[in-house]
Structures are given as C-alpha cells and as structure tokens.
C-alpha cells in the first residue's frame, strides 16, 4: 500500500468513526456516560489518588502525598481496628452467607409448590427484602430489647434465659446474622423462579431410574439450581463485605459491630483521615475482587449451565 492509499484509508476510517449514526449513538448514551464519568469513574480515580495522600477534609491544606504510608499503616499491624473490622466482617460473611443460602433454598423448595394460596406466603416471605434497611434496623432494635423485646419474651416463655442481644459482646454478631436471615426473600424468589424452570422430564427420568426424594434433590434439583446459587453466592459475598447501614443504625456494644465499611466511614468522617479511609476502601475492593475471582474460578467444578458443566 503506497502513501496515497494509506492516507485515503485513514481518511475513510476517520469518516466511518464520525458517521452520523455514531454521533447519535453517543448522544443517546451520553446521560449514562456523563453520569458514570462524573459520579462513578471520577470519584473512583480521585479516591485512588487520595489513598496515597494525607488529607483531612476540614483542613484548608491540600492533600499531601505520602506514597504507600496509608497502606503500610493498615498492614503493619499499627491499626488494630483494621484487623478487627476485617475479622468481624469475615466471620459475619462466613456464617451469614451459607446460612442465607440454605435458608433461601429451603424456603424456595417449600414455596415452589403449586398449592392454593401459596402466593400469599411467597409475598409474606419476600416482603422483608423490599423494606428499607434503616426501618429493619429500627424494628430489630426493639425486637432485641433486653427488657421489652419480643425475642426475649419468646425465650422466656420457653424457659430460656434472656439475652442482652446488642449489649453483650458475645451476642452482637449473632444478632446481625439473624437480621440477615430475616431478609432472604430476595434470593428465595430467584430460586423459586429457577425451580419452576427445571424440566419435568428430568424428574420423570430420575424416577424411572429409581431415584428417591433425596437423590432427585441431590442429582437433579441442586445441579439445575447451581447457577442461581452461584449468583446468590457472589452477590452475597459482595453484600456481606459492604454491610454498613444496618450496623450504623443498630449499633452494638463496644465496637463488636465494627463492620469494615463502617470503619471506613469512621476513618473518614469521625477521625478525619480521608486518605486512609480511601486506602481502606481500595483494600476492600481488592479483597472482594480476590474472593469473587476465586469463586468464579471454582465455578466450573460445581456450576451447571443448561445441564452441562461449564468447561472454561
């Protein structure tokens, strides 16, 4: 290709790039594009920059570059609250996610049956999932009240000792797990939809082969639901590591409710260490990315798509 042809080819490419359809396309996606750039990408990049600075939002001084000091402060065992919040969040995630998956699956199996009036029960179990977290937190503060709470009233009726749910350090985290289980309705609905979509022929074939109830569940239902469970697991992990509003509202003695994101908030707005808070946020991003990637990598081993394991 000689120089003249190259130039013509380049001109053609530029003309194609600026075809009116392209302009129209960008104009129509521009509200999203502008919103994403201004409200998501921009703040993300700015927070990445701030994570390498010392910055007090009240100060008249500009952020001062400190390199990796904020990350060192977290990882060099200087900040014990960093590890404590990480452990609190990790334990919460390790307990609440499997329990939530099991509870939502059990409920879905019960409520996927075609019985008269079953829709009412589906609605009842789904309702907590659409309630605002703040309202749920306020309700549970009263339910967990040591003296007047409904939970302790029930325990006392069963001749069990009352529990100081949010006042006793040992029971703070279990309280949060209970609250998380209360709103498994969202996952349950997705699972019901997936159960309804399992071909009847698979069950009929299993029955002909002599499979019992457990075997049908183990070898038909569970594999057919694995992609939904995978989805719920990934969103559950992300959600568990982002617990904030419920902890902000419900509190808990000492800082036994010190979830990671709550600590990020405290670092930024109570301790005025905005640079450090940004570093913590990016550490969280790395942790969630790593765990999600591990789950993704493991998915070919246990997730079935259209009756087949994904091979890549």
């Amino acid at each position, binding site marked *: 290709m000689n120089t003249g042809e190259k130039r013509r080819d380049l001109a053609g490419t530029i003309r194609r790039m600026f075809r009116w359809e392209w302009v129209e396309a960008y*104009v129509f996606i521009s509200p999203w594009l502008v919103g994403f750039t201004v409200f998501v990408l921009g703040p993300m990049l700015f927070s990445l920059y701030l994570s390498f600075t010392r910055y007090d*939002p*009240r100060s008249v*001084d500009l952020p001062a570059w400190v390199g990796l000091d904020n990350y060192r402060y977290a990882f060099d065992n200087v900040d014990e609250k960093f590890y404590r919040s990480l452990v609190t969040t990790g334990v919460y995630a390790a307990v609440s996610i499997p329990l939530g998956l099991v509870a939502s699956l059990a409920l879905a199996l019960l409520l996927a049956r075609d019985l008269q009036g079953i829709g009412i029960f589906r609605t009842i179990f789904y309702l907590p999932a659409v309630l605002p977290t703040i309202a749920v937190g306020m309700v549970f503060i009263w339910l967990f009240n*040591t003296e007047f709470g409904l939970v302790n009233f029930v325990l006392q009726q069963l001749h069990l000792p009352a529990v*100081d749910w*949010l*006042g006793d350090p040992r029971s703070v985290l279990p309280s949060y797990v209970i609250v998380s289980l209360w709103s498994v309705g969202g996952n349950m609905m997705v699972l019901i939809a997936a159960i309804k979509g399992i071909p009847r022929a698979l069950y009929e074939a299993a029955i002909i082969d002599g499979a019992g109830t457990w075997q049908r569940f183990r070898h038909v239902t569970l594999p057919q639901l694995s992609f939904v469970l995978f989805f719920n697991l990934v969103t559950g992990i992300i959600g568990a590591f982002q617990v904030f509003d419920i902890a902000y509202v419900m509190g808990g*003695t000492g800082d036994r409710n010190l979830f990671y994101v709550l600590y990020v908030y405290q670092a930024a707005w109570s301790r005025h260490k905005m640079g450090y808070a940004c570093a913590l946020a990016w550490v969280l991003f790395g942790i969630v990315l790593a765990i999600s990637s591990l789950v993704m990598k493991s998915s070919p081993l246990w997730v079935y798509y259209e009756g087949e394991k994904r091979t890549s």
Partner: protein
Amino acid sequence: MTSASGTPRTTTRRAGPAFLGALAVLLSLPIVGCDGEPGGPPRLRFATWFGTREAAEMAPIVAAINARNAGRFVLEMITIPDAYLTKIDTMMAGGLAPDLFLLSAEYLVSYASVGAIADLDDRIRRDPTIDLADFYPSAISASTCRGRLHSLPWVMMPIVLYFNKDLFDQAREPYPDATWDWARFAVAARALTKRDGSGRAARWGFVQHTWPPYLIWVWQNGGDVLSADGKRPTLTDPRTVEALSFLDRLVNVDGVTPSAGTVSQLGVNELFKSGRIAMFFGGSSDDHDRTPGLRVGVAELPKGRVRATFAWMGHLVVSSRTRHPDLAYVAWRELLEGFHRWKIVAPRRSLARQLERFEPRKAAARSVILASMDYSRPVRGVVEQTDWDGFVLEKLLLPVLRGEERADRAAAVTQRKLERILETTR
C-alpha cells in the same frame, strides 16, 4: 432517506442536535443554581444543630441582628439537627463551609489545629464591647488553643445532682446538700437501690454509662487525664486510678447502677424520668427538675478532695474559609450576645447572676448552679479528640462498667493508647 436498516432517518437526525442542546441546558443548571450576591449585601450562613423548637426561638435573635445590620450583611440560619459534624465537615470539604457554626468545646482544639476555624484572638482582645474579665476563667481556657482565643462559649452547663425526692422519702434518706461527700453519696446510693424477691434491682441509686462524663469522678479526687502542659495522659496517676476504682466498686460490687445493657437500650434520661433512678447527674439547664409526675430536687455534686464538676460548653466559631471575615466577626459578636441573653447559663458572671431572668423556672436551683459554675471545668481537647474518646470508651469505661476489667488495669492499657495518640500528633 432511509438508513441501511430501512428506517427513516429524519427523526434521529433532528433528535441528535436537540438532545445535545438539552444536555447542555441540563449541565448548565448547577452553574445557574449557584447562589451569588448580585448587588445586595453579602449573605453569611450560620449553622446550628438546633431542632425545630430551638430554631424557632433563635429566629427572632437572627432577625434582630439582620435589622440592626440592614445593608451590611444578611445572616441566614441553617439547622442541621442530625449528623451535625459530618455535614459541617462535608460542607468544608466541598468548599461550602458556613461562615459561622456551633462547635462543642471538646472539638475546638481539633478544628483549630487543622486551620478549619478562624483565630479570633486579636479581634476579641481589641474589641471594646467584650469584657473578658467578666467571663468565667474556665470559659476562657476552653476557648484557647495554643494560647490564642478561637472563640468564646455561648453557653456553659455545669453538671449538678438531680434527685428524686419521693425515692429519698421512701428510703427515709435525707436529701443531698452541700455538705455531702462521695462516701455519703455511696451510702445513699446503696440505701436507695431496691431489689425484688429474685434479687433483681427494680430501682437504682444512680446511673453511670457514657453519661455523666467519667471526668467528674477523676476531678473530684484531685486527679486528671491529661497533664497540665497537655503532653502526657495521666490515667495511671494514683488519684485518677483511685477515683476510677471507687466508681468500679459502686457499679460492680455495690450494684447500685443499672447494667450497661439496660442503660444503652433505655437511655439514662428515660431511666430517671421513669422514676427508677434516685440520683442523676444532669446539666444545670436540663429540665429534669420539671419532670411531670416527679418531685425533683437539685444539689451540688458531692465534694471530694477538691470541689469539681464537668461543664459542657458550646462554642460559636467563625470558619477560616469565610469570604467576609470582618462581617463574620460582627455577626459572631452579635450572635454571642444574643445567645448569652437567651441560653442559660451564660459564661459571664454578670449575666449568670441574672439566670432566673432568662429562665424563671430555674430560680429554685439558682444558688446550686452559681456555686457549681465557680468550680466547673471544661474538657481539655486534643488534636485527635475522636480517637481519644474512642479509646477511653472502648478500653476504659465499658470494660470497667461491665465488670470485665479492673480499673487500674484498664487505665494502664488506655494510658498506652492515649500516649500513642499524643505522640503521633506532637
């Protein structure tokens, strides 16, 4: 003309420029919405944490200042009743800090140290309308950071002892008075705590949680938590430890206070107002002595090695970012005067002596309040005040109040944490 897919193109061809135009209008809205001062006097924004009732009471004061300064500036009150400091900090970060705002005394050093609030020392000392000699010395010390005045308090609230007369009468205990010491207080607290058949307390001698400030126990015993030069925490000093151990015994051995769980869920004020607490440490201007259905008396705090009580103070500060520092100072001075003639107790001796003029319902407590003002102290803030408060609560107060740790051990652990805080900010 049609596109390659056969759909008419005239509509989309027109829609593109129209959409661009709409987008330009949309993006320009924030610019149009910015408040300017076209030709009129400058606007000064004054932020408070007041709720509806206090804001309504404050409004005439602001209106009077605006009337006196017509043509010079317009003062606008912003009320932020929830998450006050977080919103103020956010406004500062966004370059929209209010010109004047309220600040609790313990945070003055922290805000002054990062240059968030204006140094008013020269202006105040040059101002002929301000008589610093009239202010209580503790009010001046609470306003000073690195030897410079950054503010003056708009209110001063020493802690006094409210007591439920009915519970004292039932227990045949004499009412507290100025002769009481802390040993006498402990005797009364034990006598006033009543238990039911199962041994559970139904009412208690007093209540201690995050309120009242633990400092009242420390100070009355001649101890402190920060050295005089502000460079060293003194939690492990013998008198401080002795005072904390005394509190530890009252709470965990004598059991004369409700549990931390009960207090955190029901609230200290509510426990007293429901008639389940005999003695309550409250702010001098609080309305505990007007609790419906209760006969409540007011006394000074018992005396220890020294007479001391904690005084909460509220500051009015000028933002260092104000574009009108001279006018903001004028507004600050006028607001301060308005506060002193509205809120009790004014931190000025001349006005404190007239407190029943501003709040007739406190006439009966006048002598107690005035006596308490004389020996009341403010908290001495540090740069990392939030960290300081967090460690004191987490490592000292809660473990001791829950009976998980002895006072001396908890004080030693907390001392090390606080030393580290002061080291990092030195």
